[in-house]
């Protein structure tokens, strides 16, 4: 055990949508500076865990800690201010805003528009060509690039990525994960949820397997591969 508290920590977390409980006591530690992969079949509660971590879904029981500070009950706005950056499932862009305007919004209080634009266009030149195009009219891959650009200029302390690969061509996925690896190398803590474990195994330091709203295994990515295939195949 090092002296650093984990960047993110859930202890016995329960969460529900209305009457229906979805997380039944999740324990999760994301060490500072690590890349952790959250794996599991559809409906396991990966996205819900993400939403609990960034304050979108409140806990009904249990605790949430950010860098050792107990922030249970934090709002999404406050969590974002503390440097939790989320790229949500699906399209994480404002469809009726242009690329530039999207960057202006995601700059938040942590960066200026110029910084955001520089960082984004340097990494994804295609966005630079389309800076005045409506985000909703770009291809899925370009939209995902724009969504990921949010993390580039703002120097978040924690990056939450939910199904970055959804609906993207393998080449684009590789490109995206190269960016994520770059961010991780800068020391940003990353938690990523993926259906397809193989994509993230090369990057992740640790993998966590979730089934039915519970964490069932934690370990080195390679060790989990086998457990994973049995889960998916209904074992």
């Amino acid at each position, binding site marked *: 055990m090092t002296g650093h508290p984990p960047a993110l920590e859930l202890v016995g977390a329960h969460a529900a949508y209305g*009457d229906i409980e979805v997380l039944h006591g999740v324990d999760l530690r994301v060490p500072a500076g690590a890349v952790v992969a959250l794996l599991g079949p559809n409906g396991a509660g990966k996205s819900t865990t993400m939403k609990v971590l960034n304050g979108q879904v409140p806990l009904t029981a249990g605790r949430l800690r950010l860098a050792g500070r107990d922030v249970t009950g934090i709002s*999404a*706005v406050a969590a*974002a201010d503390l440097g939790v950056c*989320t790229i949500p499932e699906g399209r994480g862009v*404002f469809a009726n*805003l242009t690329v530039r305007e999207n960057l202006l*919004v995601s700059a*938040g209080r942590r960066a200026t528009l110029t910084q955001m634009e520089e960082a984004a266009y340097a990494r994804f030149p295609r966005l630079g060509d389309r800076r005045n195009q409506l985000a909703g009219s770009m291809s899925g891959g370009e939209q995902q690039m724009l969504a990921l650009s949010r993390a580039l200029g703002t120097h978040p302390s924690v990056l939450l990525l939910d199904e970055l690969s959804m609906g993207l061509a393998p080449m684009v996925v590789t490109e995206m994960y190269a960016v994520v690896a770059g961010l991780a190398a800068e020391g940003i803590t990353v938690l990523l949820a993926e259906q397809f474990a193989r994509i993230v195994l090369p990057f992740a330091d640790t993998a966590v397997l979730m089934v039915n709203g519970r964490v069932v295994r934690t370990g080195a990515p390679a060790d989990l591969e086998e457990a994973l295939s049995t889960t998916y195949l209904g074992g």
Partner: protein
Amino acid sequence: MDTFLTYTALGLVVGAIYAIAASGLVLTYTTSGIFNFAHGAQAMIGAFTFYQARVVWELPTWLALVVVLGVLGPGMGWLLHTLIMRRLRDTEIVTRVVVTVAVLLGLVSLSQWVWNPQEGRVPPMLFGADSTVDLLGVTLRYHQVLCVVIAAAIAVALWWLFNRTRIGVLMRAAVDDPELLKLSGHDPDRISASAWMIGSTLAVLAGVLVTPVMGGTLEANALTLLVVDAFAAALFGRLRSIPLTFVGAVVLGLGSTYLVGYAPAEWTWVGNFQRALPMVVLFVVLLLLPHERLRGTATRSRERYQTPPLPRAALWAVACVIGLVAFGGLISEARVGTLLVGLSFAVIALSVVLLTGYAGELNLAPLGFAAVATLVAYHVGSDATAADPRLSLTGLVAGVAVAAITGALVALPALRLRGLYLALATLAFSGIVSAMLLRDTTPRTLFGHTFVIFPNGNILMPPLEVGPLDLADATTFLWVLSTLFATLGLGVVALRNSSYGRRLAAMKDSPAAAAMLGQRLMVLKLGVFALSTGIAGLGGIFMSMAVVSVSAETFGFTVSLSLVMLTVVCGIGYVSGALVAGLIAGAGITSLQLVLGDIALTHPEYRDTFDIVHHLLLVATALVGIGVANGPSGFLHDVFERQRGLARVPFVRWGGAAVQVALLLAAYAGLLGPALLLFVSVVLWSLLPAVATAWAPDRARPLPLELEGITTPNTLALRQRIDRELRIETEAGHARA
């Protein structure tokens, strides 16, 4: 040349007013996704408050302006957002429309309470009426010039706000995806609140400027409607573009002054046409709007309805007829008349249930179609010269047919429009009907026939006579009308349960998916629109017969809006919602006022108190509409949820029914009056679920369907019930049948 310049200058001034009003509307729509029908009412409150501050309290002009623009405008916007609009996330358009309409009605009744409409108030011009300036030989007052200058300044400022400032971009982002905005560390609530504050201040500004330009005294309804005219200008820019909105405003302003100035004298209809101009323009603009893409992604909305299976609905239909006729036997003949008006409103409301509740399309002006049906029925089916005239069946059929055809015609070009745009098209249609038809009192010649469309602005509708059925008799009328409502209601439920109804529901949920499945949306929409306006027409003819003497006000657009609002409040997915809404709109409020009026006559010392109660009643109706933001499925939905538990405790349910019959018999025996009977019945049925819970606590509590089988044993019977409720035809189900 001089007159041309004068007309142009005046047109520009009028256009400037429209522009200011419309830009506030566009601002709130782009920044909150809510089309604010109450914008005009806010302007009206601003105008009255300015008058109060400047003339009654005699504050200096600058201070009065600070009070109105600096305090009232932003304050009202902030209150509206915090108390009401914030709660409208994830609701369907009809809910949003109804809530802002309720705010409109509430503000109008509030203003009539505070500022007695009988007193005339002439608001002052800014800088006074005597300071004038000569421009190219046209004399204009400072106030008029100021309007144009302010409009131009607002145009520039809004353009700058939207395109050049961070807050403007954030405002648009807040409409797009508030959750995502939170993830970027911005609070969408605070951003929308500031948008509402600016929008409301623009409304108030328009209110202060408008009356001195248009002339006359301050009048709550006229001011509110004036901004409705500005809708047309806002639509020029598809509710988004500020520059196009200004173009629209100028077109409207110039159009109306040129029309007055240059139309030939023999065109007797020009006066009416000028009134209708904004609505005509609105309609035309809607037709020419570029195609809207079909919305593919399913939105999660909070409205939920359940349609009863046909046998249960039939049982309720019979109970409804018996109950209504039995109640009719208890009350005086004059009050039966009121009940009849309520029931005909219920038929009209039924058209709203079919169209909006089931098919998800909006018609904000069912009474416009009712007016058309009434006019046709009157001219075709009755002989005005007869001593004791009757309406013939031909007249009735013709009226309904024309209403249905008109509905289809209004919907036909508007078919590719959805939601709000279609709603505005119907509103425009009703505006045209009331300005052009219901005010047309001069003789016209058509196909060699000379007749007056709306003689003296008032027609006496004769009762229907078909064979042995003569509706001049109130009891017969009640029988016929309640049977008609029950039959139509049953038909509507049957329609919803049929494959046609499922197609309508599919179209409502996802037009793109429905189109992809090979459904012909055009035919579907056209059919349901015609059917629904036909029903509205039928209800309208019966309403006219029940009211007997009808005028333009009978079909006014506030009446339409209140009826639609009440239907949503009660539950727009339910036939019972139509019944209760119709009864409240057509009979409930009138009866309460009659009762209050009677008491006020016999006890003059309480007059003031009753006056307050009367106003409170009107404001409360609007407050109920605003409450829809919290329970968008309507209050009957909650009632049914609670009553559903009763089905598991039959003893209590049948006991309740027995007590109800006993109460009715007691009323016939003269032991209690009709008002008390109603009151006791309502209390009885609201207490029954509590009784059932006390009687059998574990059985009476309804379980959400999602939890069945998870917290309770998962049995075959349960699975069959779930299949039934979801209307899934399973093999097990077939085997049973």
